[in-house]
């Protein structure tokens, strides 16, 4: 069965600090990878996705993620965070074939202090 691990449950950073959130997945086949973000009081929104091609993908608001197949990882990065990045971040995976059922990690709460 697929599973997703997010090792950092809570992260606290100051504005302008760099961010890296870890995500590892377990699945024997080919997968699509996603990062979703949930800002306080809002619904889950897609931040970025990887299907194929360049393993370094860029998303909205200056976020990027790198797919490293050998490590089964899809870590999220941002060089300089802002207070408005305070949110919960979820890594998710689905199978490349079949329908789109997403398997989520447990999420990482990011607090950016001004």
């Amino acid at each position, binding site marked *: 069965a697929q599973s*997703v691990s997010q090792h950092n449950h809570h992260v606290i950073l100051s504005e302008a600090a760099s961010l890296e959130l870890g995500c590892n997945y377990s699945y024997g086949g080919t997968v*699509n990878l*996603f990062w*979703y973000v949930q800002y306080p009081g*809002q*619904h*889950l*929104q*897609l931040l970025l*996705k990887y*299907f194929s091609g360049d393993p370094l993908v860029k998303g909205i608001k200056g976020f990027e993620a790198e797919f490293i197949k050998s490590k089964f990882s899809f870590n999220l990065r941002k060089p300089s965070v802002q207070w408005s990045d305070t949110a919960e971040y*979820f890594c*998710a995976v*689905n*199978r*490349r*074939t*079949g*329908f*789109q*059922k*997403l*398997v*989520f*990690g*447990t*999420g990482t709460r990011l607090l950016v202090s001004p």
Partner: protein
Amino acid sequence: GAGVSQSPRYKVAKRGQDVALRCDPISGHVSLFWYQQALGQGPEFLTYFQNEAQLDKSGLPSDRFFAERPEGSVSTLKIQRTQQEDSAVYLCASSLDGGVSQPQHFGDGTRLSIL
């Protein structure tokens, strides 16, 4: 623009009562998903519809959970004889078609509390 709409936003019920949660997907979206998000956890898949057909219900935790989408648009998730462990946020998501490249659009969820 119109996104996925869920109602009610909050629902409090006594243990043993039946509840019904509604999801209005984005117009024209073929695929509809229900997820359950317990406190401190990520969303977990419950069931999937393509139009009116329920193609996967493997995530429903018990036979007390039932979902339908009779006309291929609005969907209802029903929980019978609620238990305290049913307390969670129930999320609905829709996507344009069944293709894996289509992103899922999530609603705000229904926060269910069972007393």
